């Protein structure tokens, strides 16, 4: 019988409960007592309440019994003891009513109260289950993005296969309007892709052959073919789902207090209830003392609500992280979501963070006027070995000059400095001024003047030397992302201090900082230098966020109070970062702070509500206001309040769903 679902048990109980309550009310009408005796009404209520107790009361009793065996007291313990006390007292009053009356005790019954408590608390649980489900539906939404089938080219024929059977290298055929099944690299055709579901960016993105498309995004334009890049658990979508799931089950530091309280809360309530019973029993006159004491005991047990305390933080965290994921902001854990609202300073990397990270060579100057073709070929050969955006800019520049293919064996790359390669002609050094200076190269005076002018324009300058002789310099320029200026303005409005930290030369950094209204600049620093910048800010009492790419800036991201990785959409699980932005939009940073602030506000409201509810409700139920205002709490009302308290916490957390980002 108890195997049937909680909702069926509830609905079967409802008519019995309603009848019991109606009879309970009937007892209050004195004129009815001539037609039906009180005793008949009591017996009728007793019989009617048995199915309710059996269906909705037994689960509480069983659960309370099992947890007591483990020396644990839960909400079920309170409900079980509360309803049992009311019910047992009522049975005694029914069976021995004449005996009680002779002893001068009013044989009051609480059948209606017992069923009201059970029905309302069970209804509360039903609603709670529903609200809890809807709080976690961000994951369900993400899961539904992946189509179950994919169209694959096999032996020049197109066949439908299940995504589980896809192998890396399979050629997918994706038609307009279709969802891309897994991460893949475009082979043929250009495509407009809607990536909103992954990155939160509503504008479609144009992709060309060689570009990666993410599984779960939609092809908006023309058909294309793409080679499968990642399958199963490795796809971006699955990684996102894992990150969100992890974050949702992690604990925010703010939860500690509620956790500590909930461990002794229920036993404490049991003790308060017993104490209140004894006090009322001792002070009241004999005729009403038992009935009133029982009522206070039951009210205290029923109104106490440890669940609201337990739900306050996790529910808001679940909704908040889900909301972030929808906007392309992947928050790794609850602690990061909590920490982000305290951000007072942000350290921004330049290349790839405030700029697009896709630089190009805009100026060049050679020391000698001889044939540069061979020299540029050497530069290309060396820089091909580096992944750095500036290295790739030089390679593209060289390719545009029509270089010949050269090879080099010994290449060494210094992060944040430059590159050294050996050629038959000698050692080629490419890098920033400090890097060349450290290797004994003096910059040519004439060219030095030119490069200073480039710096003043905000260009990054790269020098090259053959042996110890400065040979050429290049100006590399990177477009500032279109949203950077707005994002920085928003952050300043939020009273966040902005700091630019870059390996670039001081003049270049200064120019860009001035353009964007950034006053604090640390230029010409190594990646480790960023660590000292962060430490210095932390020493000043700032709560520091570092924004950078997940690879080069990993140590700084880890050092910061909140590490935000940008543009690493392909490396979702980047360990160093607390937050990964699936889009390359700096506006996501003020959004992250907004989301964190909104979530924390929500958690504080929930905790406040859960605390104040118990702090006011328990004394009220204990009857502390009876001597002052004559105000007391009926157990049925206590049950309604208790059912509402958990639900109101859940509903408040769900309000976060409608939170919208400003700007």
């Amino acid at each position, binding site marked *: 019988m108890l195997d049937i679902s909680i909702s069926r048990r509830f609905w079967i109980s409802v008519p019995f409960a309603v009848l019991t309550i109606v009879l309970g009310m009937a007892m209050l009408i004195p004129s009815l007592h001539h037609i039906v005796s009180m005793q008949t009404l009591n017996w009728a209520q007793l019989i009617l309440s048995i199915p309710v107790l059996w269906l909705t009361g037994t689960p509480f009793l069983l659960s309370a019994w*099992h947890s007591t065996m483990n020396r644990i007291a839960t909400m079920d313990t309170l409900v079980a003891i509360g309803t049992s006390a009311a019910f047992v007292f009522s049975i005694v009053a029914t069976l021995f009513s004449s005996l009680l009356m002779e002893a001068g005790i009013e044989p009051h019954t609480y059948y209606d109260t017992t069923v009201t408590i059970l029905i309302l608390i069970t209804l509360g649980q039903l609603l709670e289950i529903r609200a809890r489900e809807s709080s976690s539906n961000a994951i369900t939404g993400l899961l539904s993005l992946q189509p179950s089938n994919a169209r694959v080219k096999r032996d020049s024929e197109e066949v439908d296969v299940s995504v589980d059977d896809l192998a890396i290298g399979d050629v997918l055929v994706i038609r307009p309007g279709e969802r891309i099944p897994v991460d893949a690299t475009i082979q043929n055709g250009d495509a407009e892709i809607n990536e909103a579901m992954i990155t939160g960016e509503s504008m479609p993105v144009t992709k060309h052959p060689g570009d990666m498309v993410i599984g779960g995004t939609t092809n908006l334009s023309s058909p294309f073919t793409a080679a499968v890049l990642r399958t199963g658990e490795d796809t971006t979508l699955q990684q996102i789902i894992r990150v969100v799931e992890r974050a*949702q089950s992690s604990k925010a530091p703010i939860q500690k207090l509620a956790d500590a309280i909930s*461990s002794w809360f229920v036993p404490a309530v049991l003790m308060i209830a*017993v104490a209140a019973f004894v006090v009322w029993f001792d002070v009241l006159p004999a005729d009403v003392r038992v009935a009133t004491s029982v009522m206070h005991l039951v009210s205290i047990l029923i109104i106490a609500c440890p669940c609201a305390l337990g739900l306050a933080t996790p529910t808001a965290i679940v909704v908040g992280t889900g909301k972030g994921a929808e906007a392309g902001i992947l928050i790794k854990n609850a602690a990061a979501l909590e920490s982000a609202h305290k951000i007072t300073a942000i350290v921004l990397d330049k290349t790839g963070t405030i700029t697009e990270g896709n630089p190009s060579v805009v100026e060049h100057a050679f020391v000698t006027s001889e044939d540069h073709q061979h020299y540029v070929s050497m530069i290309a050969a060396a820089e091909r070995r580096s992944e750095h955006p500036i290295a790739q800019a030089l390679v593209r520049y060289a390719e545009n000059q029509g270089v010949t293919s050269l090879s080099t064996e010994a290449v060494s790359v210094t992060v944040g400095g430059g590159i050294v390669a050996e050629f038959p002609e000698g050692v080629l050094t490419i890098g920033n001024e400090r890097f060349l200076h450290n290797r004994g190269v003096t910059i040519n005076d004439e060219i030095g003047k030119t490069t200073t002018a480039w710096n003043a324009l905000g260009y990054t300058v790269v020098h090259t030397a053959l042996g110890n002789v400065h040979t050429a310099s290049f100006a590399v320029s990177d477009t500032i992302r279109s949203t950077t200026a707005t994002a920085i303005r928003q952050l300043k409005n939020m009273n966040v201090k902005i700091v630019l930290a870059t390996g670039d030369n001081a003049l270049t950094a200064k120019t860009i900082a001035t353009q964007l209204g950034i006053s604090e600049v640390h230029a010409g620093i190594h990646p480790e230098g960023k660590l000292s910048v962060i430490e210095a800010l932390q020493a000043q009492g700032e709560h520091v966020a570092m924004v950078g790419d997940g690879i080069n800036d990993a140590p700084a991201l880890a050092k910061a109070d909140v590490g935000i990785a940008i543009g690493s959409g392909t490396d979702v699980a980047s360990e160093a970062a607390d937050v990964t932005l699936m889009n390359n939009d700096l506006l996501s940073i003020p959004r992250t702070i907004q989301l964190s602030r909104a979530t924390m506000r929500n958690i504080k409201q929930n905790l406040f509500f859960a605390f104040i509810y118990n702090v006011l409700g328990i004394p009220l139920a204990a009857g502390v206001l009876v001597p002052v205002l004559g105000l007391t709490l009926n157990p049925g009302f206590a049950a309604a309040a208790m059912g509402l308290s958990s639900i109101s916490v859940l509903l408040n957390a769900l309000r976060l769903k409608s939170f919208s980002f400003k700007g």
Partner: protein
Amino acid sequence: METTQVVVTFIGIALLVLIAMFFFGSSKGSAMVAQQYTGSQEQRIVVKGGYNPSVIHLKVGVPAKLIFERHETTSCSDQVVFPDFGIRKNLPAHAETIIELTPTHKGDFEFACGMNMLRGKLIVE
């Protein structure tokens, strides 16, 4: 004061002491060392008003399989959360739910129900 009142008062005080001793007393739950196999370890945990065993000793670095058998329907125990491992799972009533995790470092890692009332601990050594 009447006799009944004196009796009720004494019973009440005795109950207060009993409740305090019973729920705040030290010993809580039983400890078990997970069954060791080559390359894996396994522990069955009964969920019935608590976790039994509630303290599970695991070996560091060995993939662990925790089999939760839930023998009740109360909503108190319908979820189990391992915050340090980022795992939150629903435990269907009267069924087994398998949770797999690999402890990567030594220490105590708590787990609890969705509302943190029922608690258990993994001791990784």
